[in-house]
């Protein structure tokens, strides 16, 4: 087996193992939380008999590991359980919300990732000059502002004053694509502003690091233009760190959008999670937590694999 296949297989196996470990943690965490599921379903006025019956019915009297295995078995077969608060199937109610979250993250990523990388390249091209300082300054300022503040600023100017976009991003099934895009314009912009600087600064730093190499001098002495040197000779050698930070930010776009979704009343995973935490709906919290963990681990795995593939020594062994 070629070493690269072996390395990638190792990464994937490691990712699966990690996800399993996280599932244990999530399960254990929700067990430690104070409060009793049966009690929260039936309310304070429930009789001890009713509570005992419900506990029996939900299997809460079984040892923890049996409940964990039962839960894990359900997850693996696509059954995330039933929400306590609404008695609805969790998988069925999560799916449309996950789609919404992914839709928002996709468009935010499509704008922010290329923009961040191009801005990073430009910052290197004009390093320490006016353009570099302007790019870095604006990007840092937008990141330093808390995301709820950015969100409200956008709402104030573009929804209230100019009335270009709706201030509340309601989306529903069968909504026309154009309207849907109008609806997510502001939250996607807010997310872009939040993640831009991190990726831009990392691109800049990674490429500047590579710019010290002797082969950059070789390219200069061939008469290449400064931007071509950065693009052709520096960037391919800086891919690994850049992909890493891009993936971290993509993960944030999916799992960290809680605040933005609440501000714009966007029906995504974050909103769903917040609602059910408030209701102490443990099965929903477990399911959402597991999905977020899977996204996080999955994207980081992609970053690792991309870094392996970007290394010519691994792609083309001696």
């Amino acid at each position, binding site marked *: 087996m070629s070493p690269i296949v072996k390395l990638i297989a190792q990464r994937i196996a490691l990712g699966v193992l990690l996800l399993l470990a996280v599932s244990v943690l999530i399960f254990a965490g929700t067990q430690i939380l104070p409060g009793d599921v049966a009690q929260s379903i039936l309310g304070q006025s429930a009789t001890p008999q009713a509570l005992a019956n419900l506990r029996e019915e939900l299997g809460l009297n079984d040892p923890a590991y049996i409940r964990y295995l039962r839960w894990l078995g359900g997850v693996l077969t696509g059954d995330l359980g039933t929400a306590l608060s609404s008695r609805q199937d969790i998988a069925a109610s999560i799916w449309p919300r996950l789609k919404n979250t992914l839709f928002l993250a996709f468009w935010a990523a499509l704008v922010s990732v290329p923009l961040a990388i191009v801005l990073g390249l430009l910052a290197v091209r004009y390093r320490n000059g006016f353009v570099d300082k302007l790019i870095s300054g604006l990007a840092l300022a937008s990141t330093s502002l808390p995301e709820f503040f950015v969100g409200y600023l956008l709402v104030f100017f573009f929804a209230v004053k100019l009335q270009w976009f709706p201030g509340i991003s309601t989306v529903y099934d069968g909504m026309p694509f154009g309207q849907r895009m109008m609806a997510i314009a502001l939250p996607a912009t807010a997310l872009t502003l939040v993640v831009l600087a991190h990726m831009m600064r990392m691109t800049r730093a990674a490429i500047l690091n590579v710019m010290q190499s002797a*082969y950059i*001098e*070789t390219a200069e002495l*061939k008469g290449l233009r400064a931007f071509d040197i950065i693009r052709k000779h520096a960037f*391919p050698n800086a891919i690994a760190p850049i992909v890493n930070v891009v993936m971290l930010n993509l993960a944030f776009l999916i799992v960290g959008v809680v605040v933005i979704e609440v501000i714009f009343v966007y029906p995504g995973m974050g909103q769903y999670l917040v609602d059910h935490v408030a209701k102490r709906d443990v099965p929903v919290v477990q399911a959402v937590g597991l999905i977020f963990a899977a996204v996080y681990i999955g994207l980081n795995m992609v970053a690792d694999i991309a870094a392996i593939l970007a290394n*010519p*020594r691994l792609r*083309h062994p*001696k």
Partner: protein
Amino acid sequence: MVAKATAPKAARTGPLLDIRNLRIEATVYPPGEPPKTITLVHDVSLTLERGKVLGLIGESGAGKSTIGLSSMGYGRGGVKITGGEVVLNGRDILKGGVGGLRRLRGREVCYVAQSAAAAFNPAHRLMDQVVEASLLHGVASRAEAERRAMALFRKLSLPSPETIGQRYPHQVSGGQLQRVMTAMALCPEPDLIVFDEPTTALDVTTQIDVLAAIKEAIRDTGVAALYITHDLAVVAQVADEIMVLRHGRLVEWGGTRQIIKEPRQEYTNALVSVHEIAHQEQQPGKTPALSVKNVTAAYGGGHVKVLKNVSVDIFPGQTLAVVGESGSGKSTLARAITGLLPPEQGSVTFAGRTLGNRLADRPKEDLRQLQMIYQMADVAMNPRQTVGTIIGRPLEFYFGLRGRERDAKVAELLDKIEMGKGFVDRYPAELSGGQKQRVCIARALAAKPKLIICDEVTSALDPLVANGILKLLLDLQKEEEVAYLFITHDLATVRSIADSIAVMYRGEVVRYGPKSQVLAPPFDAYTDLLLSSVPEMEIGWLEKAIKGRRMESAGN
């Protein structure tokens, strides 16, 4: 396009390169002081005719590379050309602006760097990099440029010239990469190539092949060259004229024969004269200080055998030189002796008792008796510690010396390495290369060891400085009765310092004995190759040496 094609032709009559009163400056930022401007090159002038080779020679800091790169209008890291003219093909390139420089770089002037391994982009195939300049400047179509590159690969006797371009830099050996880089410089058919120490980073046995390939390529293509090196014997093989530089000033400029046979300046004379130190060989004693018996060692859990059944003895107060090319196992032998790489088989005996295989198994006293000095003095010292702290550390660690006692001892050691007391509070960054190596020697001596392992300690130094270090080591050996295991690839060093020699080749000791025996014929094939590859300051040595070889060098 038309202008580009005719401009050089119109100027075919004058010299190719005419540098007049070149002045190059740089701004330096010393710690704790305001930035200041220093002058690297003082009013140097030179002319180079078409198809001729001019050797630029001098120690580090002489301004050789800076002058060479000025022919491309390039200043490394903040270095600026502040005065004079660089006239190439009849025009002053310093007045052509950035666009003008870009058009000449990679077209009229090409560059071959010292370390091709670092100068090639690891992310691209060799062929893409070799033809890049030709395509950029519209010299040739891709197919034409690749055809030209393959012809050059063949001329430079690279293996499988049709397919080597499809490889990545890490898939090719250092000697081969240096030749690919030469092909890269020749591919756009420039008028001038700047060779910046192209063989310095190579083994002697590989250097000779690369040197021959470069020389032949220069002769056959008629390209002119600036050949930068610190090694007069090397430049004597390829240059028509030699220019000696020191501290950014011209010392002497003349024909190759005149410079090496009849130098007119004292400094040139010092460079030309042979730096062998007359060292009387000592007879091996009765009992060795350290004895390596049948040691076999491997990396990667036994997969890569790097030492095969190696046995050598080192006698008290004597020097064993271990020679061989890179990859022959010299440094691994040092790692096995110090316990950094536990041997798989065999043992290391010191002062009559067997040392623990692993470093962790050895008592402090054993560690004290074996000290090491490294090739790269600047990375072997903590940059944030002063010289006093660095030398004082082993005194505290091994002998528990503190305060005034330690300071007195540090002063004594500084005296021994011929550096005054003023150095105690200096940081490594404030020292020259030779001074740094002296501090490392003092640190090793501070432990009062019976044996010091010297791993290529003079390889990174200029010849005159290296000579001073060798003399110091010999003097210290007499005073302290310390034995040296001297690892080197430089045979001149071996002649100067060794009492006995072990020649290593692919992990085995192929020749071992007192210096006089090892260096006397009849030779085995490898020792012969090693000895005959050492450049001699003799015009025509290269051709003679290539002809007389009995085996190919391994770097090919």
